[in-house]
């Protein structure tokens, strides 16, 4: 049990917990802003999960600088691809969050309400 | 009822208005015709058949109607004399008018009589048809039937018993056999006179002159 409790697993668990918190917020909060925050948390959790999956025990960040020698970089850095992916994902997540917020803004402008239950005109 | 016989305008399916004059459009306005008897030999035979096949239309205008029914019963049994009852004027040859005629019923009697086919015979039953009887000065009955229709046989009495009626039928048979039963032709020949008399009594004349 204890040996499982290493860094990657902890971060993985944290990531999943953050995802769940985010989902909880997304599904239960009635305030549009809070929903967006929930989504942001959900997104962040996913990023954490991604990073922790790419982690290889005892290695360093995949940044070629003085600490990492180019020649043996592949032995001492963690897998760089998840990191790259996360960066992209963060950008996209940002985009979506921004779009959400602009939507919230528009919605508020139109109806002066942040209550999600007020936006149920379309149904069935 | 009466409104139904006034002129009216209806819209045809094409949307055009049409004038309807019910009395003219729905009733034939032809005059009655005089039908000459056929060759005497044939006519004699025909008259024999007519006399022995008296199809009676009973018109129960007055109290006399009650005297007609017993003729069908076992007691009087008029069938054995070739007298039978028909429910429609079209098929009847003898018109039995049983009693006084009010102005209202006269109209019906005239109409019915005219709907019967030539040759046709009329038996007038009871004194009222002869001179009005006890109603002779009534405001609402006619006095003498043969001013309005050609009557072949009058059966007097108030009321005459069924036996008298049977006698009347026998009399009628004799008349027919002798070729004197030409009431229908007489009516046609003197049509204007009869109509004038009828119209004198019937004020609201709202039918064609001759009811085919």
């Amino acid at each position, binding site marked *: 049990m204890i040996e499982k409790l290493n860094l990657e697993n902890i971060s993985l668990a944290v990531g999943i917990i953050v*995802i769940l918190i985010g*989902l909880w917020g*997304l*599904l*239960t909060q009635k305030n*549009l802003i809070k*929903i967006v925050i929930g*989504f942001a948390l*959900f*997104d962040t959790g*996913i990023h954490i*999960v*991604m990073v922790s*999956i*790419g982690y290889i025990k005892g290695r360093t960040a995949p940044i070629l600088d003085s600490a990492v020698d180019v020649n043996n970089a592949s032995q001492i850095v963690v897998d760089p*691809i*998840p990191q790259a*992916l996360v960066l*992209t994902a963060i950008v*996209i997540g940002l*985009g*979506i969050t921004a*779009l*959400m917020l*602009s*939507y919230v803004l*528009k*919605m508020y402008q*139109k*109806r002066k309400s942040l209550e*999600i239950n007020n*936006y*149920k*005109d*379309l*149904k*069935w | *009822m009466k409104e*139904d016989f006034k002129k*009216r305008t*209806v*819209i*045809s*399916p094409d949307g*055009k208005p*049409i004038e*309807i004059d019910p009395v003219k*459009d*729905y*009733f*034939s306005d*032809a005059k009655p*015709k005089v039908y000459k008897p056929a060759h005497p030999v044939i006519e004699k035979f025909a008259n024999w058949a007519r006399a022995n096949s008296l199809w009676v239309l009973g*018109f129960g205008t007055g109290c006399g109607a009650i005297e007609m029914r017993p003729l069908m019963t076992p007691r009087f049994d008029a069938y054995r004399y070739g007298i039978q009852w028909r429910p429609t*004027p079209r098929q009847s040859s003898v018109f039995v008018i049983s009693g006084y005629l009010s102005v209202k019923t006269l109209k*019906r*009697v005239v*109409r019915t009589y005219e709907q019967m086919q030539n040759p046709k015979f009329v038996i007038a039953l009871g004194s009222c048809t002869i001179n009005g009887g006890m109603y002779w000065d009534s405001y609402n009955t006619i006095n003498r039937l043969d001013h309005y229709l050609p009557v072949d046989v009058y059966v007097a009495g108030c009321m005459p018993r069924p036996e008298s009626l049977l006698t009347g039928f026998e009399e009628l048979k004799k008349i027919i056999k002798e070729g004197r039963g030409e009431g229908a032709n007489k009516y046609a020949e003197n049509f204007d006179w009869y109509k004038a008399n009828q119209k004198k009594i019937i004020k609201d004349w709202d039918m064609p002159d001759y*009811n*085919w």
Partner: protein
Amino acid sequence: MVGPIYIIAIALGTAFFLGFFKKANRTFSFGLMLLAMAFMTFISAQWLYAFLTQNQETVQIFTAGFKPPFSISLQMGFHESIFLTIINVLGLFSAIYLFGHLRDKGVNMMMVFVVLFMGLNVVVMTRDLFNLFVFLEISTIAIIGLILLEKKEDAISSGFKYLIASGIISGLLLIGIIAVYYYSESLFINDIIASKLMYVKGGTIATFLILIALVLELKPFPANGWALDVYESAHPGVGAIVSSASATAGIFILFKLLPAFSDSAYYIIAVIGTLTFVGSNLLGIKQNKATRLLGYSSIGQIGLVMAVIGLTPYLGDKTMFIAFGLLLTHILAKAGLFWLAGIVKSKNIRDWAVIRRNPHLLVLMGTFVFALIGFPPFPSFFAKWELIMQLANSSGMVWLAFILLGSFIEGIYMFRWFGYAVKGENKDLPEFKIHWNKILPAILFAIGLYAFGYYSSTLTGIAGKFNYLPLLFIVFLYAIDFLPVYIKNTISIAGVGYYLYTIYPGLEEYRLVFGLIFLAGGMLTLLAGYAYKGKRQGFYPLTIMMFAGLLGLIEAKTTLEFFFAWELMTAGSYFLIIRGKKSMPHALSYILFSVGGAYLILAGFALAHIDQNTFSLDILSNVQYYAPVIFTLLAVGFMTKTASIGLHIWLPGAHAEAESDVSPMVSAILLKAGVFGLIILMLHMGFQSFGNVDIYYILAWIGAITAVMGNMMAAFQEDAKRLLAYSSIGFLGYTVFGLALMSHLGWLAAISLSVIHFMFKTLLFLAIGGVVWRVKTKEMYKMGGLIKKMPFTFISVLMGIIVISGVPPLTGFGGKWILYNAVLDKGWFFPAAAVFFAGIIAFLYCFRLIHTIFLGQLKDEHREVKEAPFWMLVPQYIILGVIMLFSALPNSLLKPIGEILLPYFPDGALEWQGQLAISAFGYWNGKLIMFIVVGIFVTVFAWLWYMNRNAQKVKQFNIGYSAERPSLPETTHFAYNFFAPYKKVLGFLVTPVISNFWDDVSEGIHAVADKIRRIYDGNAQNYALHIIMFVVVFYLIAFGGFYGI
């Protein structure tokens, strides 16, 4: 050749460049954008062309100079090129369609638009999983951006729902991607496929996540509420893009990644797809907002395509054909419908009646609707055909059933909608304007549907065999629709006549009989068309469509051709029926029964096709499995057309409300198609039984009960045309009974009755049609005494009813006589007694028909009515001539039919001695009877006439009326509820049990749909919850049952 990478380059460049034109000339910006879209289209089309014609190899494009997995790679293969072309063409036309919109909203929207299509292009081409994710997100963001830029309130709230939903989905996808990467250590799709992840521990869940995310992108039922809201509220142009372009890309992703999943993924996809197809369509039937309706339909159609992909194991190498056929139809038709929705601007489907102000729009709408349902000649027809055939062939019966069910339900709301458009009340509705840029794409897409339909038919191999000449004739008639009636009528008659002339030598046996009924009958009834004035827009193409279908049936050599023709005929007759005045609900029930019947026929053909390598109709005589089931399916299918009891409720309304000369077409001619189908079926399949139960005995009873009930209903009708319609039901009952006897005489009776029914029903419907034409009412009790106004029509009706009632000497008696002999031969006395009882009941309605209309009292309004139009009388009298001929010389009709039947039923044929027919039981000499009867009649008449030559003619009120006189013709005409005492006794038989049953079924379905659709309560969070629950449920199903582990 321009490299595919330039698509991205151009799109990005244009988007970037457009930014400089912020405030400048918007039209110019739009032109630039359009140019970019056109160039993108050109590139993809060019590749497609290369793949199609020049044996082009699939090309891999590597970016940044590395090979995968170290770089992102794009692939341009045959499938990619097809999808790209579709997407880009759609983009191009969407852009054209949105011209005004984009120009008004400005450059920002144009940029987003271009980016959207760039995203979709990359999604199709990329071979890198993460890149796929990125561009999927980009296109999603772009769509949501488009919605946002519209600045409409409800659109915005729906966009927000979309955002939430797509956020969750992309989260799932992202986790899936990283997990896949974790196990396969590559993002290159080819590597992932090669690594066979699902067999690696933990890899299953990774692929499951990807799979479920991709499926969720396709808006599966019921996790799709957000999509519906978007469809409903977005600009229809955007809706078209979401429905068509995004969905196309989504399908392609699924298709692309399919090899990466385990085989059981197929199963999951198929289940979800089918569930979506049925579920979404079911919920759609309660919908009355057009765009949302289209949303339901879109989701359903994509579900169907998904199902097809999932059913690959069943479909084998036909999958691509089927999927493309369905997808292409969906894209073209759905985009077209969304665009029409943008033009018409009516929210409620009831208000779509406004579309008829421009009939050509209606033609477009009809094209799209019929394409969606899968009518010929559209690609979906061929795709559905192959789908069903393959499913049956590989024992996918449950799938088959559900897919047909879903299609049927879709038909319900689609045809209802179309019905409102064709027949709804269109006064007081707002005007709409048509801009060329809005209508052009829809027209081109409609043309595309036809073109691809033809192309599909060449792929299935019937193009060469099927006769497209009539279809071209339809197009020609549509083109000359502006001409006056008499020209078009002449051309139509000439066309039908010419066709009859050309095919006549090739027709044999019963095909000849029915060919003559269909085509010669068609020409006859068309003659009545000369009575019409003006243009009669749309009538002739539709009529010819029906006749084209009918003659297709005659010419069909294969099941596919037969079904093609069957559907064509159904469509044509539907249009003809819906032309009638109050025929909207009746046309709907007609088309639904027809479509339902057609699906049964389809299923029957499919089952018959199992283990047979040809589509020839002969496969029916060589059925390998399920023979009784096939027989039942086909028989029930055909009996929807013969309107047998239980399936008849569409008929009375449809025939009664149709136009005067359409009624004979749909009644006298069209119903024979069902008889023809039954004949083919019975000839090929022979005796069938379920265990000990002889199906034919059941059929005989069905025929008998149909006959009794049809005639009984007819006797109690007040509406003349309805009466005739019920009479048709009854008469077809005799025919079905005769066929069910399966003996020489039974068939002789059935086929000769079919011919006779054609004649007298044409006669009567035309005659009554002529009366209705003049008096403008169908209620019999409102007519009366018309004999004096319409003596010629009266004579036709008189002859017609004498034929119906089977009284000698006219030809109807022949049918009765043969039927008697056939029954004695066969021994099924109880159904036979019912049939003869029905024959007697026919007297009731026959008399009523002629009495209430022609005899009795003439009404005020009809005093100046004229005889029916000359051209209505012409066909009637031609038929009368034929009837008299057949009556006097019965062997001229019966002998050839008997000879046709000899090869099939050699025993029990009639022996002919001149006109004397001798059977095992009796004999009958039609000519002699005719002479004797006419002789007696003429003698008596002459004598009576001599006797009464001087009769006084009187008028209608000169009747002995109990010393009174009639007052009004209305109160003197005994007509209403004519058989009141009869009704008192037997009225319980005609309580509309069957109509009520179908009403209840329909109401039940609607109620269920209404209940279920309440889950779409409009709350974004609930929608999100649906998605999560969907994932959980499918996770449980997948890992609890059959997926991988």
